């Protein structure tokens, strides 16, 4: 009885609270009106059409894709190698090094953004694709390390010993035995990295210029200047991609949990 009360009195409104806003935006993105009426007077793909035909949006989308893909590849490779070293290697100050690798997660993004901005300004790198990719890789690196390190720790270390005893030198052992076994976690880390870059706003704000912006940056400027629902369409597309990646992550994680 007590529980029934909680369920209806709390869960339902909260569920609504958690999910409704995004759904409403998606609905509005299909509105035929240029004013944010809800429910919309009519439906159509007008704003999606706008999105795909205005260069500000398409350029930003292209930039976001490039930066997200690039930083995903960089962070995944770097993160996997680093995780290997962190878990299997011997080095001084283990706790400190491990903590340092995770520090981008703890420091507020505004501070990171400011620091990078100051540095890149001096190096004339503001507004370059490279700067964005490096910055996003830095933010995604901890996610990759966490995922891959976890997989390495739960993997039976005797596998690698067995491979070596059978004649495989370290690199071949890694490629033929270790990597296949940790692959689901590597993929999960890569997807995390992609999403982190795809959704990233603050650092991108600092490092963007009118000539090079990511999609979230454009959404930000449009939201503040209160323009038409193309923003809603853009937001829905951004969310759509995020959800797709999330599904991919889900199945990768599921595969990682299958006992090796």
């Amino acid at each position: 009885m007590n529980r029934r009360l909680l369920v209806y009195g709390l869960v339902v409104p909260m569920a609504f609270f958690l999910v409704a806003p995004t759904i409403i935006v998606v609905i509005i993105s299909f509105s035929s009106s240029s004013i944010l009426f809800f429910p919309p007077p009519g439906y159509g793909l007008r704003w999606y059409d706008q999105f795909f035909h205005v260069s500000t949006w398409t350029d930003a989308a292209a930039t976001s894709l490039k930066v997200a893909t690039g930083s995903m590849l960089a962070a995944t490779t770097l993160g996997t190698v680093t995780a290997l070293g962190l878990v299997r290697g011997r080095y001084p100050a283990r706790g400190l090094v491990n903590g340092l690798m995770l520090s981008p997660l703890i420091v507020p993004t505004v501070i990171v953004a400011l620091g990078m901005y100051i540095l890149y300004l001096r190096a004339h790198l503001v507004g370059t694709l490279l700067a964005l990719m490096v910055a996003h890789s830095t933010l995604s690196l901890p996610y990759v390390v966490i995922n891959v390190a976890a997989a390495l720790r739960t993997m039976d270390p005797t596998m690698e010993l067995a491979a070596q005893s059978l004649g495989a030198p370290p690199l071949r052992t890694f490629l033929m035995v270790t990597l296949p076994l940790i692959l689901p976690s590597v993929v999960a880390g890569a997807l995390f990295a992609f999403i982190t870059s795809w959704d990233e706003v603050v650092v991108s704000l600092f490092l963007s210029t009118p000539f090079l912006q990511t999609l979230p940056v454009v959404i930000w400027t449009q939201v503040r200047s209160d323009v038409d629902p193309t923003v809603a369409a853009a937001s829905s597309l951004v969310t759509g991609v995020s959800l797709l990646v999330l599904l991919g992550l889900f199945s990768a994680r599921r595969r990682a949990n299958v006992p090796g």
Partner: protein
Amino acid sequence: MIDGPGPAALPVRARAHLVDGWGLLTLPGVGFLALAFFVPLAGMMVRSVSDPSPANYLAVAETPVFLRSMLYTFEVALLVTLICLVLGYPWAYLMNQAAGRWRWVLAAMVVLPLWSSLLVRTYAWTVLLRDSGVVNQLLERIHLIGQPLPLMGNTLGVAIGMTQLMLPFMVLPIFAVLRQIDVDLLPAAESLGARPLAAFVRVLWPLSLPGVFAGCLLVFVVSLGFFITPALLGSGRSPMLSQLIVEQTNVLFHFGVGSALAVVLLIVTFAVIWLGTRFVPWTQALGYGESDRA
């Protein structure tokens, strides 16, 4: 074999190296972070005392706007933490009571929003909360109000937006700890004569405290440094610290002062984390005693 040769001088191998082959693999990652992350932070700290001088910190300490902002930041973070606790604890409790599929549904509802971009979710709130927004439209249409309610551009809007974003960070740690609590404890307490409420207060609540603490710490720390939501849903007149930093650097180009403010925020963040971890062992609080979280 009993009386073998005595311990003669044996060729002893050189001492094990400090770093072995595998350990060297950490170098690229650590090096990259050093260059791409720590150097910028250091540069910012240097800037805070060199542009023009450490007097920046004096300005920070003495300007009322800055001080008020710091106080406000703490207030908002505290407010959001409390709301998240009040809403999040029952949710975690229900998740723990629920079986199989329902547990997944509850978890998904709380975790999924984490995956749509935070900017998009904040934008969604502007659509709902602005004067001509969905909520006000609805309320006016059913004649509950005559004039639009100020639902954003103030602390209320910020609180609403941030709560939605922070809830997972409160729910998950609490759930992780609740999960570890022996499922027979509450029935045992009740069999000993305790009424449900008393059993909760005296048995479940104290045992769930590590999770509560972890959740509160997490939400509080993250809220301190938040930018997007306060910037979009808050007001320019009572900014949070992060808004101030952006304003000083991107709008006014006062890099020195902006950096000083950033350093202050950084120190405060670390101070709170350090203080928090004094009281609770993190790994236990986040439920790393067992395997996966929900």
